[in-house]
């Protein structure tokens, strides 16, 4: 071997390669989204004007909204606009889509992060604990709980949380978002139940992955080496096991992100949170095509981006990937 380039360039090269495929994916995704949504029946203009509107009024509105230009041109305008950071103007709201998405992001993003943090905060210790007690009552209990957690539909869990903590105990709001203006903690409070209902099923999956990947690692030769050095089981587990076990867990976190988004769309529905998920539902029912397209694009982008970041994170966790070309 004679190729020990500095890690930075290797990292960069690795990122660049992933970045190209990311861009291609995004381009294809935008085309798919646009085509599907344009094919969907329903016209924003007639939706806005309701059942008493006259045909010429609808036509006038279509012109005003710019809906009568050819589809391919609308597509190019849309994509071109997005590249410049301009997502266009909502048909129904008549405000810039970017602004609407921005507002919603302030709900969806904190929710996703909150849920992700919560689920990792629960899953990691639980998984590590179970792995270190393999086969003992502690392990059996944790695994039983995760088995149950995986089986619980998050929206049902959300309903139960609402029933118990919002309706009966009145500790939390049953839904809605107070807005960050109301203060950080008030905002967190209104995201707590949604985040819990998203996080727990997620945590169950992660805990299982954490445990099994740790168990795999425990069987590795280097764990035996570590023990031969005089590390106790616990020391070996923490100092050599956890970081190695993180690699498959990261993959799962990346893959699960798409589930998390799908889940949060439903959960936003349950808790009536003004997030991106609701925006999709709302704009699809009002045929606010450009909003639907942009939000779906954003969701897809975020999944692709997260997986990209996960790939980069691998390289941080696993030095082998930094030099692998």
């Amino acid at each position: 071997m004679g190729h020990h380039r500095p890690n930075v360039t290797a990292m960069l090269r690795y990122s660049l390669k992933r970045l190209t495929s990311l861009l291609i994916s995004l381009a294809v995704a935008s085309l798919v989204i646009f085509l599907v949504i344009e094919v969907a029946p329903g016209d924003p203009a007639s939706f806005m004007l309701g059942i008493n509107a006259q045909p010429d009024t609808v036509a006038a509105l279509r012109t005003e909204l710019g809906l009568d230009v050819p589809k391919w041109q609308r597509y190019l305008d849309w994509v071109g606009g997005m590249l410049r950071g301009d997502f266009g103007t909502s048909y129904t709201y008549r405000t810039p889509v970017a602004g609407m998405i921005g507002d919603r992001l302030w709900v969806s993003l904190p929710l996703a992060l909150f849920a992700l943090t919560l689920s990792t905060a629960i899953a990691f210790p639980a998984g590590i604990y179970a792995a270190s007690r393999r086969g003992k009552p502690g392990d059996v209990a944790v695994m039983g709980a995760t088995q149950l957690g995986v089986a619980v539909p998050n929206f049902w869990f959300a309903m139960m949380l609402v029933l118990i903590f919002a309706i009966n105990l009145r500790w939390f709001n049953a839904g809605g978002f107070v807005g960050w203006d109301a203060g950080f903690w008030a905002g967190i409070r209104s995201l707590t139940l949604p985040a819990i209902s998203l996080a727990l099923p997620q945590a169950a999956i992660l805990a299982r992955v954490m445990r099994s990947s740790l168990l795999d690692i425990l069987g590795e030769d280097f764990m035996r080496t570590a023990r031969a050095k005089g590390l106790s089981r616990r020391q070996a587990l923490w100092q050599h096991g956890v970081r190695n076990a993180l690699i498959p867990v990261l993959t799962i976190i990346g893959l699960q992100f798409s589930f998390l988004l799908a889940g949060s769309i439903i959960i936003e529905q349950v808790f009536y949170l003004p997030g991106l998920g609701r925006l999709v539902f709302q704009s699809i029912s009002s045929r606010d095509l450009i909003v639907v397209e942009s939000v779906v694009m954003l969701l897809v982008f975020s999944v692709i981006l997260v997986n990209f970041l996960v790939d980069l994170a691998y390289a941080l966790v696993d030095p082998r990937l930094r030099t692998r070309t």
Partner: protein
Amino acid sequence: MNRSLIIGIALSSLVVCAALLSFVWTPYDHTVMDIPAKLQLPGPAHWFGTDHFGRDIFSMIMVGARTSIAVALVAVGIGMVLGVPLGLTAAARKGSWLDEVIMRGNDLVFAFPSLVIAILITAVFGAGAVNAIIAIGIFNIPVFARISRSAALSLWERDFILAARVCGKSGARISLEHILPNVTNLLIVQGTIQFSLGILAEAGLSYVGLGAQPPTPSWGRMLADAQTMVSFAPHLALIPGIAIILTVLGLNLMGDGLRDYLDPRLRISRT
């Protein structure tokens, strides 16, 4: 046989039996409404009580099992039938443009959260069980493609595949003859897991109104209907919820059990 497998099979077959039985018998006709008898608590007349239209919940749960199973099963079928050949092809042509195209296509589909796929499909074709199946099915394709590709790739490294190539067999033939049989265990296990995820997904889609349409009962829609009534009739939400949990639990236990049961490492140590 291990404990997970036994419990899993027991739970799953309970659900399957209920679904099958519903074709010939349910305590009540699940479509008949008896509005004066609405919102009854579980009791001797109606074992699981009645819903807001006075329908018998026990019967609806039985028929709902049918919907859940049908949707999830067909969706897994779609995922397998399309995903596995794609994955095997990609593995057989590893590194080629075909592999690249298949895998990038997979990533692309994967980038669409299942619910978004469902929303897009229903926006075009309308809500319904068939479209829910398609949405979940599409989501399953990359799952199976990925898992079969990675399993196949490690098999392609094995000497017995090299031996088959030495014997002049084509990639397609090797995939069919040598790769496929050796990934079936994995596919069965993954299939069980996807099946349980399918049941959850179906419930989620029905809950937001994108799944099976009335009068076909669906556990997810029962939950959606129950949502405003949990405060005074919690059984409406509890019963379908528990049905979903037990089914998914059963399938997951079965999947785990099967994995242990079919794991070649464990089997070799037994022989």
